[in-house]
């Protein structure tokens, strides 16, 4: 019997991904060609034996609801398990009143009705794999009120700038939670991943709601961590936070390196996604593909280097794709050269012959665009 139900939170107002986010929530972003970001938190839960999962969404839920469906592809026990999509009716990205707390308040009766004693809350904009069942057990054993995960990084000056950091004492107690202001290299980045009893969670939500209508869950936790016993649990392995366009591009590119990928993926810890029933990818005689991650269903006649190719893409003869993240169902036409770009779904790059951005500032081609 699983002790906890899961909540997959939406990306808060501090997360703004130019371009992609106009079409779908961060959780529904295509990732590494084959996946969507939300596949990671939900697979983590499913593999950890959590099979009652609430996914919170705000604006533009279509692609996310389509992808999640009944949740059957996440191997959640289809009779006893359940994947619910929870709408935050007033939810609008950027609206200061649209917080995770307001979404929980709106769906309070559903949370109250969950039979499990614990709740695990995880974000939909972070990519990592971890076993929540160990996290829950360690928490229950520790006697702490709340346990939360963090990832120690040494590049907090230039990355994770929209994330929170944890101040931790020697006993791994959380002293405070504050935004990463980019003034130190070494930081403990909050993974927005918590476990606590359902009762405490509800108390905190109500308290936050009464204190300020703009409070987020992280805000109330920062305020309460003096009173409560909040423990920090370190995470090792691959970790990425999708907080803006650059971090999305970088997280994809980092996983082209098989060594990094092996830090994220494990045969014993499958990451599930919705199947598309695409056939294998066909590489033609004049194709040249190196250092790339390629999904199924592609027809490749051109050149691909250091790139991620989504499902069902067509790379025509003479095309050059370099340092790109290509989403699903994209056509790169004859002789077209694309470099340092993220090309969104259903785009057709047919006429523009050279589409090149600088490596420091990768470019973005809109969904369904024809060039």
């Amino acid at each position, binding site marked *: 019997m699983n002790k906890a139900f899961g909540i997959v939170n939406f990306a808060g107002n501090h997360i703004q991904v130019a371009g992609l986010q106009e079409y779908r929530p961060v959780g529904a972003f295509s990732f590494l060609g084959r996946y969507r970001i939300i596949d990671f938190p939900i697979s983590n839960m499913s593999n950890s034996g959590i099979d009652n999962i609430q996914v919170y969404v705000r604006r533009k839920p279509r692609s996310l609801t389509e992808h999640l469906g009944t949740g059957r592809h996440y191997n959640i026990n289809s009779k006893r398990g359940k994947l619910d999509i929870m709408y935050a009716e007033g939810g609008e990205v950027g609206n200061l009143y649209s917080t995770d707390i307001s979404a929980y308040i709106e769906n309070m009766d559903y949370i109250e009705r969950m039979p499990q004693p614990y709740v695990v809350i995880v974000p939909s904009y972070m990519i990592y794999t971890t076993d929540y069942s160990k996290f829950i057990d360690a928490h229950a054993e520790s006697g702490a009120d709340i346990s939360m995960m963090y990832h120690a990084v040494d590049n907090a000056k230039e990355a994770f700038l929209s994330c929170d950091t944890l101040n931790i004492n020697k006993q791994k107690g959380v002293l405070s939670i504050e935004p990463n202001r980019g003034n130190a290299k070494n930081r403990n980045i909050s993974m927005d991943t918590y476990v606590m009893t359902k009762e405490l969670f509800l108390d905190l939500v109500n308290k936050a709601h009464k204190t300020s209508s703009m409070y987020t869950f992280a805000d109330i936790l920062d305020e309460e961590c003096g009173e409560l016993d909040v423990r920090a649990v370190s995470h090792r392995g691959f970790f990425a936070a999708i907080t803006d366009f650059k971090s999305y591009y970088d997280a994809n590119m980092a996983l082209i390196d*098989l060594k990094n990928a092996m830090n994220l993926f494990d045969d014993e810890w499958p*990451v599930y996604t919705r199947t598309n029933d695409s056939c294998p990818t*066909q*590489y*033609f*005689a004049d194709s040249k*593909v190196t*250092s790339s991650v*390629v999904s*199924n269903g592609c027809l490749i006649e051109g050149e691909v280097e250091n790139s991620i190719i989504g499902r069902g893409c067509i790379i025509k003869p003479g095309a050059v794709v370099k340092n790109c993240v290509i989403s699903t169902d994209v056509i790169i036409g004859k002789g077209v050269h694309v470099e340092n770009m993220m090309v969104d779904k259903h785009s057709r790059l047919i006429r523009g012959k050279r589409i090149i951005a600088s490596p420091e500032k990768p470019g973005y081609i809109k969904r369904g665009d024809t060039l």
Partner: protein
Amino acid sequence: MKQNNMLAMILAGGRGSRLHELTKKVAKPAVSYGGKYRIIDFPLSNCANSGIDVVGVLTQYESVLLNSYVAAGRRWGLDAKDSGVYVLPPREKSDADLDVYRGTADAISQNIDFIDTYSPEYLLILSGDHIYKMNYAKMLAYHKECQSDATIAVIEVPMKEASRFGIMNTDETGRIVEFEEKPEHPKSNLASMGIYIFNWKTLRKMLLADMKDPDSSHDFGKDIIPTLLNEKKNVFAYKYKGYWKDVGTIDSLWEANMDLLNKNNGLDLNDPSWKIYTEDVTSLPQYIGSDAVIDRAFITQGCIVGGEVRNSVLFTDAKVASGAKVIDSVLMPGAEVAEGAVVTRALVAGGVKIGRNAVVGSADSENIELVAKRVKGDE
């Protein structure tokens, strides 16, 4: 069932002994093909895409894997209400002893009770070991149009190869007047594809009679079809045009995989309107390394390519280490080729490892080498 009143039965009991070690543990319909598929995915997906809701799969030889594989009808979308894939191995009945299926027709006869529960108007008989895409709804429309008692799908084969097949001789209307099994001097080149549509009532009567006939071998080709023709029933040939392959040998299985490397291979697995469904695996996308050379290849999920792959098909989770070469070959699921090894004109069975610097197969071999056991390298 409600969609077109036709129930399909797939004959999947064949052993496929000419595939040697590949069918030692699994029946031929469960043999892997085309990177991510098993052969039986083709008739099952064709059924699903043709609007057939109920499919019986007749299994017999080494059926454990096949049974569990096809029982997951959801893979092919055959899991709605009143829909399903039913595995039908021989079973003991109250009025008969447990017996093997004595022939293709007997396999159907022994399941008359199953078919009767759906009381279909038409019965579609398929073979579980052919690779092709076909819309059975169109064949049914033709069957109705001709007011046939039975319709047999045929494909034109080269005249000089016709003596390897069951050949249908037709009159000018397409009506079959004569059937010859592997004729020495064929009169036509219309080969039977082993795909039949019967009016269930007619076939049911014939099967009941056939069961009692001590001289019958209980086979569609040898007994049922000849009887239909002798009785001057309406039997029409339905001409199929397109890719069709019966992969009976290692060479033909290799060839069928190589066909996929041609741009216009006729099978067009990429056609979104007629997808072939299969088991959904959780392997990673394909990882292509910095020194990889890929020249004409069909590669699927879970493959890691560090070395050279030319004219080859790589199945799920196959790995080619950097410095290894795979040429004119097929690597079945999970096959691994270590650094410096060279694989040429070979079919490497699932999970088999080729060790470092090992050399397997040769460019001028007459036959394709089947590698079913680990090949030690110099490590």
